C-alpha cells in the first residue's frame, strides 16, 4: 500500500445512491414521526420531538453529502490490511455472504446452533477462497463445536445444541 488513502475510481452511481437512500429514509422518519401517538399527558415535549429533529438533521446531512458528491468530492473508501481499494468491488462475494447468513438463520431452529454455525463458517471460508474445500468443512465443523462447547457448555450461554446433539451434556448451556 503505497498511498494511504486512495480515491475510488468508479462511476459515482453508488456514491449518489447511498446518500439518496439516506435522504429517503429521512423523509420516512419525518412522515413516520407524525404517526407516533402523542399522549395528552406527554407534556411540553412528547415522543415526536426528537424524531422530527433527527429526521430533519438526517435530511440536511444526506443532501449535503449528495451535493458534495455531485461537486466531485468522491469518498475515500476505507483502507485496511487486507483491502485493496483499487480493486473493483465484488458484489457477488457480498451477496453470497449475506445469503449464507440467511441460510444460517433458517437452520438454527431445525439443526441447532453448532451445525448452522458450521454451515456459515464453511460457506464463508469457501467464499473467501479456501482450498481444498473439504478441509474448510472439517475446520468449520470443528470450530462450531468448539464454540458450542466453550460458550454453551463452559460459560453457560444457552445456544441450542439441536435435535441431533440434544443428549450430549457438554454441549448444553
Amino acid at each position: 500500500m503505497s498511498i494511504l488513502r486512495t480515491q475510488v475510481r468508479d462511476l459515482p452511481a453508488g456514491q449518489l445512491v447511498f446518500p439518496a437512500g439516506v435522504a429517503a429514509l429521512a423523509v420516512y422518519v419525518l412522515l413516520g414521526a407524525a404517526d407516533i401517538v402523542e399522549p395528552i399527558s406527554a407534556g411540553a415535549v412528547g415522543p415526536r420531538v426528537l424524531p422530527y429533529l433527527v429526521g430533519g438533521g438526517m435530511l440536511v446531512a444526506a443532501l449535503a453529502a449528495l451535493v458534495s458528491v455531485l461537486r466531485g468530492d468522491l469518498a475515500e473508501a476505507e483502507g485496511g490490511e487486507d483491502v485493496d481499494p483499487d480493486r473493483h468491488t465484488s458484489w457477488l462475494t457480498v451477496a453470497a455472504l449475506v445469503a449464507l447468513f440467511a441460510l444460517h438463520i433458517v437452520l438454527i431452529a431445525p439443526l441447532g446452533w453448532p451445525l448452522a454455525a458450521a454451515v456459515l463458517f464453511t460457506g464463508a471460508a469457501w467464499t473467501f477462497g479456501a482450498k481444498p474445500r473439504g478441509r474448510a468443512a472439517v475446520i468449520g465443523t470443528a470450530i462450531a463445536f468448539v464454540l458450542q462447547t466453550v460458550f454453551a457448555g463452559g460459560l453457560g450461554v444457552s445456544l441450542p445444541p439441536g435435535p441431533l446433539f440434544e443428549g450430549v451434556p457438554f454441549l448444553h448451556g
Partner: protein
Amino acid sequence: MSVVVGYVPNERGKAALHAALEETRFRGGPLVVVNSTRADRLVDPRYAQEDGLTELEETLSRAGADYELRHFASRETAAEDLLGVAREVSAELLVIGVRRRTPVGKLLLGSTAQTVILEAPCPVLAVKT
C-alpha cells in the same frame, strides 16, 4: 527432460533441493525450482523472501546446475502449482520433501505430498527429513 523440485525455505525444502541437485547431475537436463504462495495470509513462511531467494540462487549456482527458478503467487494450492509446472515442462522426475505427521495433523491440514504423489505425471522422489 527436466527435474522439478518443490522448494520451501526450511530444512525440508533444502533436503529436497539437494536430492534434486544430485538427480540432475545424474540425469542431466535443467532443474526447475518451484516456490509458490496462494497469498492468502499475511505471513507465509513457506514463501521465500528476498534473503531466502538470494541464498537459494547462491546454492544453485555453486552447484553449477542449469536451473530455472519459478517463484510466484497463484490462486491454486502448492500441490497444484507444482503439478502444473511438472506437466508444463514434461518433467522426468518430481522431487518433494516430506515429514512425519500426526493423525490429527493429517486430518486438519491434508497433504500436499499425497496429492503430488497420486496425481504426478511422472515418478516422484520423496525425501524424508
